[in-house]
């Protein structure tokens, strides 16, 4: 029974699948879409029904399928990545130079450059960058050095001009004694020209390490009445803020007190502060 029925089915299916004449055939595009699985289910089944009864289209379909499979195989072979053990083996066995080469190779791969060429290009690029950085720095340093040199030269010239006629102390001087100041005053009184007298006094005071602060205005003075126990030093410290400036006070008042003696109630001149 079963074999008879099976024969009945096979006969029916053989009839169904036997070749037949077709008025139209699927296009190459449709065949390719069918092979790549881009057809909707009903379209795919329509195509399958045609192929089942059209030996020419079926052969064409088979050849296309084989071509696509071959293409896939080629692509898979090309794209096949090395296995992990293989990569580890390569890494273990690689010498440093090979690592550099492989590193260069991995960098240059996207650009299709040879490692040697890439290495040269990298060295040139590094040199250009180094020069680009150091030249401006050197230029800047040179400019700074030349400006400093000029500054030093101008300062030297300034010092030379200032020191012309002045004695620049080469050591830390000690303050003049009252006797020394007395001699100084006598010498100054011998100079008639007030400008030259002033220069003489400034020069000699400078030799004692005394400079007249710019904060003092020697042209405008005020009167100070000497109190008991006042000395030139205490007055200078209290009124001018610096004990060392007592010589200035003495020189300003040398006419009234030629010997430098102070007595309570005596009036002396004190320079105003600017």
């Amino acid at each position: 029974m079963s074999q008879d029925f099976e024969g009945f089915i096979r006969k029916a299916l053989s009839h169904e699948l036997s070749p037949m004449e077709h008025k139209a055939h699927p296009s190459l595009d449709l065949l390719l879409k069918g092979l790549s699985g881009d057809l909707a289910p009903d379209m795919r089944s329509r195509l399958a029904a045609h192929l089942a009864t059209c030996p020419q289209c079926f052969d064409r379909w088979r050849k296309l399928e084989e071509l696509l499979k071959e293409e896939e195989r080629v692509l898979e072979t090309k794209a096949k990545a090395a296995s992990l053990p293989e990569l580890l083996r390569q890494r273990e066995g690689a010498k440093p130079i090979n690592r550099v080469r492989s590193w260069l190779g991995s960098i240059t791969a996207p650009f299709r450059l040879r490692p040697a060429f890439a290495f040269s290009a990298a060295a040139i690029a590094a040199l250009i960058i180094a020069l680009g950085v150091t030249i401006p720095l050197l230029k800047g340093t040179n400019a700074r050095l030349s400006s400093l040199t000029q500054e030093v030269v101008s300062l030297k010239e300034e010092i030379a001009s200032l020191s012309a006629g002045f004695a620049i102390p080469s050591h830390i001087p000690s303050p003049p004694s009252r006797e020394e100041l007395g001699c100084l005053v006598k010498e100054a009184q011998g100079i008639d020209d007030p400008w030259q007298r002033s220069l003489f006094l400034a020069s000699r005071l400078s030799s004692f390490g005394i400079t007249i602060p710019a904060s003092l205005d020697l042209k405008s003075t005020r009167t100070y009445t000497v109190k008991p126990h006042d000395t030139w030093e205490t007055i200078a410290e209290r009124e001018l803020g610096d004990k060392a400036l007592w010589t200035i006070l003495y020189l300003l008042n040398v006419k009234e007190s030629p010997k430098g003696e102070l007595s309570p109630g005596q009036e002396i001149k004190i320079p105003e502060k600017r």
Partner: protein
Amino acid sequence: MREERLFYLDMLLRGEEVGLERVRQLAAKASADAPEEEKAAWVFLLSVVELLRTGTPSQRCHLQAYLRYQISQAGRRQRRKPIDPQGLKQAGLDELLAIGPITWEEALEPCRKTRGSVDYSAKQRIEARLKEMCRRWWEKLFGAPPKVLTEGGE
């Protein structure tokens, strides 16, 4: 109409749904004096559509295996292409014809959940069920069925 039947057969092989009423309407157009193969093809298609809609999951799976087996046997005689057992599950007419004849064991492979003995009796059970349905559809559409569908009846 042959291409239309093959279209539905391919849909069934791939597990797509096919409307029984639509196939029945088409089959009804076939005249009573149509060739026996033509009538057999219609009743076989209608039986398969009906059984795939009404059968148990196991029956549906065995029926699809039966379709694969019979179509491959009815096609080209030479085996041309290696088989991917799981690929057979979605194989349509074109793939089956390209593969060539397959064994019942190979056809049944997508239905097997575990590697065990092959259920050869499943083929007989499906055939018996199909035979009964084919007889019924033949009577309904073309009158008296042929002897092959009636002898040794169930």
